[in-house]
């Protein structure tokens, strides 16, 4: 966790985005927000809420129809790919769309090769990234020989190796069993702790948001519905319900029982309950 007064690394001002014909959907309808360097933010919302469009605008793939997105002080959609990749990393939901080389090692090296880094630097950084994601032993395998979970890690490693300041991860836990989902979230948390990387995670698993994210931004119909720490946001059950979002079970229980301080995890809920029952 970092202090509240940290420098904003992402600034979104008056962001509007309309898809070109034939779709012509107004995906974002006036979004204003700032993300501080080193924050771990969850981006939450139903399909169609605009969360993916917002993420794509944050990473520069979509150019705003109106408004401005700046990351690390630069208009991100106007940067060339090589500059952009060093500022914002984007890990897509489906790892199969992000694997281009014949071996795990080459895959991770790919980005650095595109940036024309010297060979010894590439070797060092690729090894570091692979070891961090526990893929070093599999470095000679073809990416498609890996399990789904390992391919997801590989996709993350391939972006991590570029050392972006902001890392956007799109639904990192879909299709994973709960234990693997937590491993990925632990990884992102460690990254944030050790390297100060700002993390924006698009997710719909509220229990993970409660456990790992210090801030959640909820989008609804192209606008920000609510933005704040989970401890405050999860209290607003009715507001969240308009966007079909349901706080984790212990939060809902706490609201029904009037438990304070408001718990986000099982341990906190236990403590709050026991505190109401002195022996």
């Amino acid at each position, binding site marked *: 966790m970092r202090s509240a007064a940290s420098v904003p690394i992402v600034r979104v001002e008056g962001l509007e985005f309309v898809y070109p014909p*034939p779709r012509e959907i107004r995906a974002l309808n006036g979004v204003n927000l700032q993300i501080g360097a080193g924050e771990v933010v969850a981006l939450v919302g139903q399909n169609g809420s605009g969360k993916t469009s917002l993420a*794509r605008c944050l*990473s520069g*793939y979509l150019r705003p129809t109106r408004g401005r997105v700046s990351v690390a002080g630069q208009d991100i959609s106007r940067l060339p*790919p*090589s500059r*952009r*990749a*060093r500022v914002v*990393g*984007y890990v*897509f939901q*489906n790892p*199969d*769309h*992000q*694997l*281009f080389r014949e071996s795990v090692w080459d895959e991770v090296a*790919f*980005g650095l090769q*595109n*940036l024309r880094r010297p060979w010894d630097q590439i070797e060092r950084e690729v090894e570091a990234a692979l070891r961090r994601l526990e893929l070093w032993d599999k470095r000679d395998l073809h990416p*498609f020989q890996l399990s789904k979970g390992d391919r997801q890690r590989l996709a993350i490693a*391939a*972006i991590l190796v*570029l050392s972006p300041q902001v890392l956007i991860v799109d639904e990192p836990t879909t299709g994973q069993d709960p234990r693997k989902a937590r491993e990925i979230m632990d990884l992102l948390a460690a990254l944030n702790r050790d390297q100060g990387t700002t993390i924006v995670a698009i997710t719909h698993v509220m229990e993970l948001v409660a456990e790992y994210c210090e801030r959640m931004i909820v989008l609804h119909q192209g606008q920000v519905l609510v933005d704040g720490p989970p401890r405050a946001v999860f209290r607003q059950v009715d507001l969240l319900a308009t966007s079909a979002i349901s706080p984790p079970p212990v939060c809902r229980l706490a609201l029904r029982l009037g438990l304070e301080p408001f718990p986000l995890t099982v341990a906190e809920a236990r403590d709050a309950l026991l505190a109401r029952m002195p022996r």
Partner: protein
Amino acid sequence: MKFLYQFSARDSFIHRLDPRSKLFFILCFLVASFLIPYPWIMPLIVIALIWGLGGISPREYLPFLLFLLPLMFAITLIHLLTDGPPYLQVQGVGLPLSAPGLENGLVVAFRLASMGIAFILFSMTTDPFDWGMAMYQSGLNYKVAFMFAFALRFFPLLQEELVIIRNALTARAYHAIGSKNPFTFLQGVAISIMPLGLGALRRSQDIALAMELRGFNYAEAMGVQRTVFRDIRLRRWDWAVMAVSVGFLLGVVALAISRGTFPAIATSWLIFLGLLAVLLAVVAWFISRAIKG
């Protein structure tokens, strides 16, 4: 941008026609296009037909039309440069640009355009499964017919995936996406194909299992005859369209003969096309026998 194929599920006269009558019309139209003296009329006719009888305005396939323009330009240019004398004279100066070449080039270019647009007429107004099942009813092996329709159905999805793959490449600072240099651009295409292909392969395995579980081989295994649920048959309007097509073709032939513009070369084209059609039919028959057996 889905210009190569896009089925618009609407209701119009053309949408309601049997695929076979539409194909027949296109065939007659293509042959006739070799004989019409003013081929620049042809694309306009087709566009008008699609708009009037099919309810699809040219704006919807504008990217395709724009795609055709450089092609047409290139063809005209080739004829301009390679056809023989007499050469064009501009203010008394002889340029190495063939005068009949200009005319020939434009004629061929417009023919090509009308063929392309006619194809669009077909693909935008025909459910690929109607097409496939119509062929099945006409004797093509079921699995071949189904796979054909199935491939068309998945085409838009592949296009969407390609966009994501390109974005993913940009995320790795890859330079070739959107490059103006054709060589680099092709490199970008090549590298995109691998994840697209392997992803498609992986999904095709899942699809094959799902199809098997829902009875894809049931008919063969249990010796039962498949039903075709959709109501595909040649109706009055289909016969009418086919009659009009034949009439149109004969009319054009008669016109060409009466005006003496039925060139010998057109005859060899017709023979060539005829042979091609026979060849394709034989190949299709062989493939379907091979799969049946």
